[in-house]
């Protein structure tokens, strides 16, 4: 089957039939960090994928501010503000 991966966007071929959890394990992807989508349908972990399916594996992790602490927690911390 054709498997679309993101960040960066690329495509790989994986032989089916295979379950969602097995597919993720085979690609060494953590199931907490991805969704498996066929068309616009979400497939649960034991759902079976066929050899002629087109699948998207979508990452769900997104980056935050990348700064220590939390942007929203920083306001009015005088020490921070004054030193910048």
């Amino acid at each position, binding site marked *: 089957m054709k498997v679309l991966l*993101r*960040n960066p966007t690329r495509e790989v071929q994986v032989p089916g039939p295979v379950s969602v959890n097995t597919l993720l394990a085979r690609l060494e992807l*953590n*199931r*907490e*960090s*991805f*969704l498996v*989508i066929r068309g*616009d*349908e*979400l*497939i*649960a*972990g*034991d*759902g079976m994928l066929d050899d002629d399916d087109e699948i998207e594996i*979508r*990452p*769900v*992790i*997104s*980056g*935050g*501010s*990348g*700064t*220590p*602490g*939390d*942007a*929203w*927690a*920083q*306001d*009015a*911390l*005088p*020490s921070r*503000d*004054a030193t*910048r």
Partner: protein
Amino acid sequence: MKCRVCRGPAIIDIRRHNANFCTEHFLRLCRDQVAKAIKEHSMLAEGERVLVAVSGGKDSLALWDLLLELGYQADGLYLGLGIGEYSDESGDYARAFAESRGATLLEIDLREDYGYDIPTGARAARRAPCSACGLSKRHLFDEAALDGGYDAVATGHNLDDEAAVLFGNVLHWHTEYLARQLPVLDARPGFPRKIKPLVRLGEREMAAYCLVRGIPYQVEECPMAAGNRHIAYKEALNEIESRSPGAKHDFYHGFLSRASETFRQGIDEEQGALGTCGRCGSPTPAELCAFCRLVEQAGGSQPVELSARRRATGSSDPAPAGGS
């Protein structure tokens, strides 16, 4: 797999709840968890107006949808960061959602309104892009909420975000951040109330929510985020979560119920030191607040690597810097 509630075919398994859900009962779970977070932490009272910080990503659009579904008067504010194509597309997702729901979307464009964008402005001000970005968001969302008479600003921080931030704060013992890492920050003079209604929902659930509700969102990562520590912390926590489902929930919510209070002692005295910014009037210990200093350093910096920006509304006259 079968839905825990109705035994129908499940579309998602959530190991933290040791359960699977069909579309209908998954959506109900999301609404219930948001309602529970709002109640548990007294985030909003009935009839209050809330301004949602909308980025065009899954979390903020799901949050906006959930608040509208729960009957809250929720408007959105989109901040154009000027991060090339990424920002152009993100703005389109935010506008498309607002239009589909007949909801009100306010817009601020950093380049048009303040004369800088994140990549070039951060360079001019010698700040890390995410630091300039966070500062701009914080200031402008606060200001818009106060000016618009909103009761609170809601952000799409989910359980994974909060657990990852907590992880980083604990790893480096940033005790002053630990004191403020709360799902609600009450309003204080110059600051609106800030709420995080998604703290009981994971990142994977928010992506699934948008998919199931047919909400297109920005899937691509912000180019400035590549390889940042926050993402590494999330990956590390998901490694732990996959071996020990529920670990992220226990880590963060256990912190709130059992540890957070300890870090808050002695925090209040610091606030007495704040005066007001000579330009915009927001609270600051300095003459000019950090945002007005950023505008001063970054404003007028020429965009070099960026494509033309689109904007749905508004004039091209730049507003006075930091004006309110």
